[in-house]
């Protein structure tokens, strides 16, 4: 709070003061007060007004400066009212009370949404586990009866179910993953086996290199991420998928490359955005624009980086970078 701003804020009382003093001065001259008594009275008035103003300015300045400092430096600005003391001047007190009330009402509002969100998420998780039971029975029935044509459709159902589950997980603030060493080879092989029928139907060949390494991640989440990337390759005309890993001192890079239609350059910056379908998504197959969005969110939650590069008609390459944090290496 600067003095000039404070004074500017006080212009009306200052004008009133000056006018009253002028009236008092006219009154005193009209009654022929001596020059000395006019001077003394003026001095007393001036000193009184000045010191009252100064006192008010100082106490407000110290309070509001603290307020400004806290509001700038606080990470969670809604906690402002909690960190400040109650001011000792009236207008401050009123504002402080109002701020606290508004704050606590907002907190309740937010926590209500959190509760709702959480219970919805729990319901989704439960539902996913329930729906997996009939899918599992059907899968076994198909195998026992030798009806293999159904099992591919069942895998599709299963992958849609997974996508719902991970969407719910990617949005929640809860930490429901577990970071531990995961073999890239195991993770990729599981995904390949799960998609084997469809891959063979589309005559897509797989090759891997350097996957004999471990990264710090959640195995289940990584499985979902790789599954989504593979689903995209299958959707967009790939005939070869190459997965390679390279270990650097500070990170491990996993490259998931296919020779499909590729992504147009104008679409490339937006592919991780929600509901973005792009030219390929609209023209080739029904795309929901959710797959890569969820993948991106999951990667961010796990602390991995994902980026894409592509040449239309040539290739698409997804690069996932796993950090190497030595803290995790304590086993």
């Amino acid at each position, binding site marked *: 709070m600067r003095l000039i701003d404070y004074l500017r804020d006080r212009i009306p009382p200052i004008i009133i003061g000056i006018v009253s003093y002028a009236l008092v001065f006219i009154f005193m001259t009209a009654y022929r007060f001596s020059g000395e008594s006019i001077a003394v009275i003026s001095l007393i008035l001036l000193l009184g007004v000045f010191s009252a103003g100064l006192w008010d300015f100082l106490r407000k300045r110290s309070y509001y400066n603290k307020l400004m400092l806290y509001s700038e430096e606080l990470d969670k600005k809604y906690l402002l009212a909690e960190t400040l003391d109650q001011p000792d001047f009236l207008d401050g007190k009123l504002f402080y009370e109002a701020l606290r009330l508004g704050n606590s009402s907002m907190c309740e509002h937010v926590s209500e949404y959190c509760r709702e969100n959480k219970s919805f998420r729990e319901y989704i998780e439960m539902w996913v586990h329930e729906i997996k039971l009939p899918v599992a029975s059907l899968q076994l029935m198909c195998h026992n009866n030798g009806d293999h044509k159904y099992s591919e459709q069942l895998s599709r159902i299963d992958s849609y179910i997974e996508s719902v589950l991970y969407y719910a997980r990617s949005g929640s603030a809860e930490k429901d993953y577990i970071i531990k060493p995961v073999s890239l080879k195991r993770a990729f092989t599981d995904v390949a086996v799960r998609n*084997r029928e469809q891959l063979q139907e589309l*005559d897509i060949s797989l090759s891997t290199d350097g996957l004999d390494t471990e990264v710090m991640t959640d195995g289940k989440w990584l499985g979902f991420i790789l599954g989504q990337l593979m689903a995209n390759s299958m959707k967009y005309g790939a005939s070869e998928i190459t997965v390679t890993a390279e270990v650097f001192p500070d990170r491990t890079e996993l490259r998931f490359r296919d020779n499909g239609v590729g992504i147009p350059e104008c679409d490339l910056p937006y592919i991780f955005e929600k509901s973005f379908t792009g030219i390929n998504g609209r023209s080739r197959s029904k795309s929901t624009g959710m797959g890569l969005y969820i993948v991106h969110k999951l990667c961010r939650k796990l602390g991995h980086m994902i980026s894409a590069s592509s040449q239309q008609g040539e290739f698409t390459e997804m690069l996932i970078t796993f950090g190497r944090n030595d803290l995790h290496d304590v086993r």
Partner: protein
Amino acid sequence: MKKILLIEDEVSIREELAVLLKNAGYEPVPVTDWEDVLGQMRSSCADLILLDINLPGLNGEALLQEFRRENSTPVIMLTSRTSEIDEVLSMSYGADDFVTKPYNPTILLLRISAVLKRSAGKTSSTQTYHDAQVSTVKGSISRNGCEQILTKNEMIIFQLLLDRQGEIVTRDDLMTALWDNDEFVNDNALSVNISRLRSKLADLGLEDAIETRKKQGYVLK
């Protein structure tokens, strides 16, 4: 015949699993009484236990932990849960493996046979096929002093056929087993591998060891 105790509360899955296991040459013993599951586990004398993680009024993990105090029968956890935490917990409580729902039936059978072999301590030893010695470590078959080296793919195929000797093994099963071992072969490659395996067996004097069943698969005689 290996006895497998089947602890799964979802009726349709339990029944289908029982059929699957029976077809694969095991003797499934389904648990239907949810009182004293632990007692049934202990008194079953099974060679392997398939244990669902979610049981009525019971927690599969706690059950496993309790069971492990006295018994070392191999246990494979079946789980519909999709969280890594459950798997880590199950393993730390002494599960030998876990399979997630919906199961890939071939993978489930592969896991079962792997766990059974491991528990029998047969992993590194040699197996016999008629009068031939099969060494999984060396990847070779020898008979009457002659030895044939098999490639990794051929060994995987032969191993699966040998595990289910006398039964039909579908191309699909063989394919899944190969893929599960990071050999992402296609249909043609599988045919080539099988014919190479056949000629290697023939070189050892084991002609017509692998019989083709039209539209069904292969049988190792």
